[in-house]
């Protein structure tokens, strides 16, 4: 499915290129024009979508199973809001663009997560305290973002808003490489930690009884999840709800009781690429930021999920 969408995304656009042409080009046999359009314009965008989607999905799955709450994805609890605050500061106050914005978003996400973790620490970090502190910190950061937006002139504020929504427009290889490196380190790390995550799922007491070092384990899972979200946000902006929906979709596909990290990553990638395709085509020639689509699809899904979780008493 991901592969199919990948080819579809490369083949459509202002220049239609048939799937066979796409495959030829990827194999190095394409015409000059096809090669330019695909390799230089579309491929980076699609790669960013794919990788960022996977990173968001994996990050969300890690958070959700760590906190035992389907609602505790990095975008709900304020981590990506830290990235936004840093990036908007960069755009609006310092007036920089490009790679520096990504770098500041990355740093912002890490710093915010560290702050949330420290504030939630009280002889260990419990899931609900992490979530609530995250919501509080997120609220402050979002009012800070609104403040910066109210100060800026309309044009740069609107540029910042596009970034804040999560956009894949004008992505190039400079966005792909850091993301690719990040994901290729963090994905194996996440898979290694999956066993520990399963042990933590039995509850802290049992996990300790089984010889797990609970706090260290929790911290490493958290760091992995935050780093994934940070890489993805740095490349694509805080695309809403991808992290949130990927986990539940993956669990539904492979069965309720599994961790499903790899399926979550794949689900995230599919959601992201598909949403971007829709976002580019929806209004004809006017490309919307991808975050508008994920937001519109993710929001009702979230409400439904929320209602379901509360009804079954898993809401917290």
């Amino acid at each position, binding site marked *: 499915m991901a592969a199919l969408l990948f080819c579809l995304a490369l083949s459509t656009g202002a220049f239609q290129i048939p799937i066979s042409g796409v495959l030829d080009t990827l194999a190095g046999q394409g015409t000059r024009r096809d090669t330019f359009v695909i390799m230089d314009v579309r491929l980076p965008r699609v790669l960013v979508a794919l990788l960022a989607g996977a990173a968001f999905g994996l990050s969300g799955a890690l958070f959700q199973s760590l906190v035992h709450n389907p609602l505790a994805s990095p975008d709900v609890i304020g981590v990506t809001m830290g990235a936004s605050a840093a990036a908007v500061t960069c755009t609006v106050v310092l007036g920089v663009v490009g790679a520096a914005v990504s770098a500041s978003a990355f740093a912002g996400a890490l710093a915010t997560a560290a702050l949330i973790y420290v504030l939630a620490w009280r002889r260990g970090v419990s899931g*609900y305290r992490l979530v609530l502190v995250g919501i509080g910190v997120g*609220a402050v950061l979002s009012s800070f973002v609104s403040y910066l937006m109210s100060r800026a002139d*309309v044009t740069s*504020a609107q540029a910042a808003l596009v970034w804040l929504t999560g956009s894949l427009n004008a992505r190039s290889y400079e966005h792909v490489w850091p993301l690719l490196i990040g994901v290729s380190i963090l994905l194996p790390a996440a898979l290694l930690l999956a066993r520990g995550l399963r042990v933590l799922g039995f509850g802290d007491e049992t996990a300790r009884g089984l010889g797990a070092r609970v706090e260290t384990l929790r911290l490493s899972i958290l760091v992995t999840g935050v780093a994934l979200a940070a890489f993805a946000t740095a490349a694509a902006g805080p695309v809403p*709800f991808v992290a949130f929906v990927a986990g539940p979709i993956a669990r539904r596909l492979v069965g309720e009781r599994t961790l499903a990290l790899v399926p979550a990553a794949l689900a995230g990638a599919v959601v992201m690429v598909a949403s971007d395709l829709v976002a580019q085509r929806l209004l004809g020639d006017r490309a919307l930021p991808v*975050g508008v689509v994920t937001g519109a699809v993710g929001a009702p899904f979230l409400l439904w999920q929320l*209602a379901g979780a*509360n009804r079954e008493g898993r809401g917290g």
Partner: protein
Amino acid sequence: MPGLLGALGLLALVTVLSVAVGAKSISPAVLADALLHYRPDDADHLVIHTLRLPRTAVGLLVGAALGVAGAVMQGLTRNALADPGLLGINAGAALLLVIGISVFGITSLTGYVWFGFAGAAFTALIVYGIGALGRDRATPVKLALSGAAVSAALASITTAIVLTDSDAFDRMRLWQVGSLAGRDAALAGQALPFLIVGAIIAIPCGRLLNALALGDDVARALGQRVGAARAIGALCVVVLCGTATALAGPVAFVGLTVPHVARMITGPDYRWILPYSAVLAPALLLAADVLGRVVARPGEIQVGIVTAVIGAPVFVALVRRRDLAEL
């Protein structure tokens, strides 16, 4: 009672400060003169009458509304973390405001107050409705998550509309910070009837919330009609929050912080918590507003930012407390 008089004294002091302090420094003598013998041709008098007095009046109204709404919300949900901002009411008001501006082409502040009001009401119902599903009713974590999640959902719809309409965006981003600046006296006058209705509904709430605090079963055994009590409280919250948010934009953490301070002074009796909150909250809001004007001269930091910076540590401290769950 002496405590309440002290609180009123504090409020009076802050009110005077709010009229006296600003980007343009005006001497106390001129201030008194402006209040007693207003001359529209004098620039200082004009500043006081057209800018600072309405601003202070709006601050008083919004503050009192948020304080009472926060206290009622906390009592109603028996939830120490309830606050109109954190529970998504602001996001709902914002969404309907944007729809009002963008779809219906409303340009005057007096026009879109109504939309903010409807949005607040509608979100309050959704957030509480979702948070209260399930066996254990609305626990703090469930409500806070519902609030955050619904906020995120509504905010992304808001963004989608705003991105395609730069005019709406420009209006919106100024409203979205939470500010008392630029609200004229007519607007305060328009909001007043709503706030009076809210205040009248709030009067019996003290007794009702005291009963609910005992738990539904005990309250029922004492002859209290629990459902009716909840409905009255909810109506009070919606009217007060909706009006306050439409007036001043999203101001978070005032409704969260003040009832806790009030509770520290009065103990758990809501018949006292409510009046204390009604007095202390505008004092906090005006103080924050004055602070925002003083620290960033000649510009100003909007009151919503200052209250967030003041309120967030309180929120974190509450979360860290062990007996967080119940009030």
